């Protein structure tokens, strides 16, 4: 998948990612210029009213963490790669890139999904929430706060996926039982094995919810 890692030169700001990018990749990327939506690629065959987008980069506006952001990506770029490599929203992590580990979990219209397994262009018009959104009035959201309190992470790489999946589970059912929360986390994996600490965090969160806290 390294062939979708390059970034089109639309974004002016220099980020850590820009800095780390190899000059070779940058040169290749400048060769591809973004199209405007009006010029959406290839003319559709005469009997069809559906115009194709791409294969050149297509201009895309996404709703990420309540902000409207614009970029240009090829159709093959996943939501995960668009967020991380084009929009610098790096909470979601790229681990398996095959929809099995959960590190890339984000909420799309309130539901947890694997952002590595959704095309960026498919997320157009939907509300995307990543771990970065788990701030409640300047205060850390209760879910990641419980992870901190109970040390429910070791290397921490899977954590953004876990907290998003757990937040989505509590949003869906604020009175969920610990067993239901565990079921909601069954699409995420922690190779450090911090599950017992997560259980402690879940126990406290479920207790709080029961008391209406």
């Amino acid at each position: 998948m390294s062939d979708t890692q390059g970034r089109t030169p639309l974004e002016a700001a220099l980020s850590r990612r820009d800095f780390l990018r190899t000059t070779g990749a940058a040169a290749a990327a400048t060769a591809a210029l973004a199209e405007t939506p009006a010029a959406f690629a290839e003319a559709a065959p005469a009997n069809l009213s559906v115009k194709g987008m791409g294969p050149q980069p297509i201009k895309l506006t996404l709703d990420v963490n309540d902000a409207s952001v614009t970029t240009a990506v090829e159709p093959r770029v996943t939501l995960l790669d668009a967020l991380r490599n084009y929009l610098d929203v790096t909470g979601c992590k790229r681990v398996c890139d095959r929809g099995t580990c959960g590190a890339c979990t984000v909420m799309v219209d309130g539901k947890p999904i694997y952002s590595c397994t959704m095309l960026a262009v498919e997320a157009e018009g939907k509300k995307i929430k990543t771990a970065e959104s788990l701030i409640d009035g300047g205060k850390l959201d209760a879910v990641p706060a419980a992870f901190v309190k109970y040390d429910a992470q070791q290397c921490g790489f899977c954590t953004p996926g876990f907290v998003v999946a757990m937040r989505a589970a509590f949003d869906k059912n604020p009175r969920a039982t610990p067993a239901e929360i565990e079921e909601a986390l069954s699409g995420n994996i922690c190779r450090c094995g911090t599950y017992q600490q997560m259980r402690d965090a879940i126990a406290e969160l479920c207790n709080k919810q029961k008391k209406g806290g």
Partner: protein
Amino acid sequence: MKNFTYYRPKTAEQAVALLDDKWGTTELLAGGTDLLDLQKEYIAQPDKVIALRDVGINQLRLDGVDKKPDDFILGAGMTLAEIAAHGGLKEAFPALTTAAGDIGGPQIRNMGTLGGNLCQRNRCWYFRDEHTPCLLKGGDKCFAIDGENRYHAIFTQGHKCVIVNPSTLAPVLIALRATAEVLGPKGKRKLKLADFFHAPSSASEREHVLKPNELVLTVTIPYPKLKNASYEVRHKQSYDWPLVQAAVAFQYADNKATDVRIVLGHVAPTPHVADAAAKALEGKEVTEATASAAGEAAAQGAMPLSQNAYKVKLVSVAVKRALLTAAGRKKYWEV
């Protein structure tokens, strides 16, 4: 993955018009949980990807209250999560909601769709390896027959390619006598789910009988109040494929099972209808003894490969447990 042109039609007719009449150059994108994986591995390399998100086939409806109040019509775009959580479906078809709710994890179920589950590609590791020229990728050899085959078919007679059909909804829908409505360039046609699948043995075939330019619109399940259940044997509680699955449905009156259907999943290149097992139970009360006997009958004719004889026993167990569950008997295996 290879880059492509992305289309987002607004109607099913537009989607079908965009499809080529041969496999490989165009692909339909629903949840994407299978297609994107295949593209990343260069197994699928379409020039055009046709997204179904705006086509409007994601509803469940109960067909015309006056005409056929007993039919459940599921839009092919319904997600597995929506199917698993639907109250009416849970009551009528616990086999279906159990099977849908056991697929993958929550994220997969929020993305994956009914149509996608039926049309997904198989999970054979030789097929999924870009560099292995197996039968389904234009080669002249099935590498699983003499290779690593512990998760492959046990009903292998007459099959050059020994994949197992990957759909867990398929055996259930066949047991429930469901039909699919598909749209092609010449219009709509209906086919029984029992006739929907096919054992492929070349690159120009898929695991189902649909043409390359056909699209599944709906799946209709009649509701003759059948007892039904699906039971999977798996390594893991979640996020795993079944080793063996049994889906059963039957009428149950006066402690007699009639109209019995027993369909096995993950044991053959297509869902495997176990007629001998159904016959063994026909007209009998569902007890541990009769369920066991049906289970033994279901395994008849199995010709396992070098590493998967263990699946033969699992078939018997899965059928027995599915039957006892459907009949509301005690689940002796749950302590």
